């Protein structure tokens, strides 16, 4: 029968072999209804009104955005809701040439982590209220040159009648070049 499979270490298949070989094909059918939970529900409700809310932890001084009802670091129940500004700074940014389904995008997208300002609160460089979002008003070169790091950004909101209580109620964070 030829060299033992366990000695050979397995039977690799080339792409074409995989396509043609006898196999079973099946599709999963699960659909999920996800509940946002207490904190997120209130967060999205306020996004619709054009406000970004967070919860403050008196134990570590962090403001959690998006908000949580507990602080994961201190394990306390959080009850103080604060309003963040819709401005902040770019912590890191990248240029994506691929869509979520790995197709090449017509127009590359700039994505970043934005550290939001919360009036009245200061944070360390280790832990801060940071969110993932699209960045607009910047070029690929701004990213590749790292000029975009630490740039000031401000949320560009979707028109009020098009907000539905979603992270996309903010269209993107626009770079405010001085």
């Amino acid at each position: 029968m030829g060299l033992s499979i366990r000695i050979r270490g397995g039977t690799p298949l080339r792409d074409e072999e995989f396509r043609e070989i006898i196999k079973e094909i099946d599709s999963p059918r699960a659909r999920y209804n996800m509940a946002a939970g207490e904190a997120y529900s209130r967060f999205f409700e306020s996004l619709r009104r054009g406000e970004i809310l967070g919860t403050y932890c008196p134990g570590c001084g962090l403001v959690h955005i998006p908000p949580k009802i507990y602080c994961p670091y201190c394990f306390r129940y959080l009850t103080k809701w604060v309003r963040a500004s819709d401005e902040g700074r770019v912590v890191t940014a990248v240029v994506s040439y691929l869509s979520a389904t790995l197709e090449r995008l017509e127009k590359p997208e700039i994505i970043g982590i934005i550290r939001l300002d919360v009036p009245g609160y200061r944070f360390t460089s280790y832990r801060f209220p940071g969110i993932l979002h699209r960045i607009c008003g910047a070029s690929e070169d701004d990213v590749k040159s790292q000029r975009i790091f630490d740039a000031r950004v401000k949320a560009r909101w979707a028109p009020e009648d098009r907000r539905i209580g979603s992270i996309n109620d903010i269209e993107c964070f626009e770079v405010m070049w001085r």
Partner: protein
Amino acid sequence: MKTNIYVKSRVAIVGAGMTLFRRRMLETPQELAWIAARRALDQAGLELRDIDCVVSGSAPDAFDGVHLKGEYYSEGAGAIRKPHVRVFVGGGTGVFVPIAAWWHVASGLCRRVLVVAEEKMSSAADPHPQAVFRHIWDPFTEKPLNPNLIWIFALEMHRYMHKCSVSKEDIALVAVKNKRNALDNPYAQAAANITVEDVLKSELLVYPVNRLDISPVSDGAAALVMVSEEWARRLTDTPVWVDGIGYTLDTSYWTNRELSFPVYLKNASEMAYRMAGIDRPAKEIDVAEPYDPFDYKELHHLEGLGLVPRCKAAEMTREGVTQRDGDLPICPSGGLLGVGNPIAAAGLMKVAEIFWQLRGEAGRRQVKKSVTTGLAQAWGDLMQVGTVVILRR
């Protein structure tokens, strides 16, 4: 050798085995697990009936496409009418499996444990195994942005480059080194002789990540046999002792922390160093296999492990220190970049490599210097888990 923890029995590895790592394998998940398990048993000189417990690990069921896949492949992993547990911490699983097996032996509960990690990513064929990662995002704050998995790594990589003033060229040196190391690894999927320029010219996916910065999708399995001290001395003259284990999990809220340094890994490695009685890791670790799914992660993890001062890993790589003939050989196996990335099996492959290196059995991959203490590390989830084992001869 001092160990700073009370144990009923010291724990040793006496055998290791793995399958080929390839993009698509014909074998079923059970059969992949069996090939690796059988080879580990063969090297240990044991039969399945000699094993009293089985610990296995595999990443999401969504890859192999069978729910409760731990139970599904368990027969191939030898868990037939034996105590069995499956562990899972994302990419960290491969090094977590021997950690969980360590608990079994150190406590005295089991004496001869079969340790298996398996992954068959090719089953998730339509559209592509990477699509499974679409489900790791927060459904409310991240998924609606239509994210692509590579975003996270690109964001972390770019932050690291910015904070530590590291260029893409520096980072590409890791891909070049590991893929070249893999040329000597008979199991390797992606071994190649490439240059830094090849990496920079490869398809730009999400700046700063190019295609050759990433490890491939793979099918594969790896296995170890871990035994008590009494059995180690009976079975072999060269047991490899598992003297330190460490594991730490951070939150999944990866956007609210400084990404240029993996704090969770610092905690995990300190836990392992403390247990193994290591005060100066940079001096006392002879060879290491940190987790390298992306080339920049090798640098990132070397710093998190304390093997090199913060932001200095690139310099160390440029100077050739991490080559197989260097002072601190890193990823002599070829790493994930060169050998392949069947998620859970990849981490266990690294542990197997250190095991073989410490016994002088790594063939052409054997590092130049004499080695007695080695480290293997894996990482997983959303910038979350660090798992570390320290092995000694």
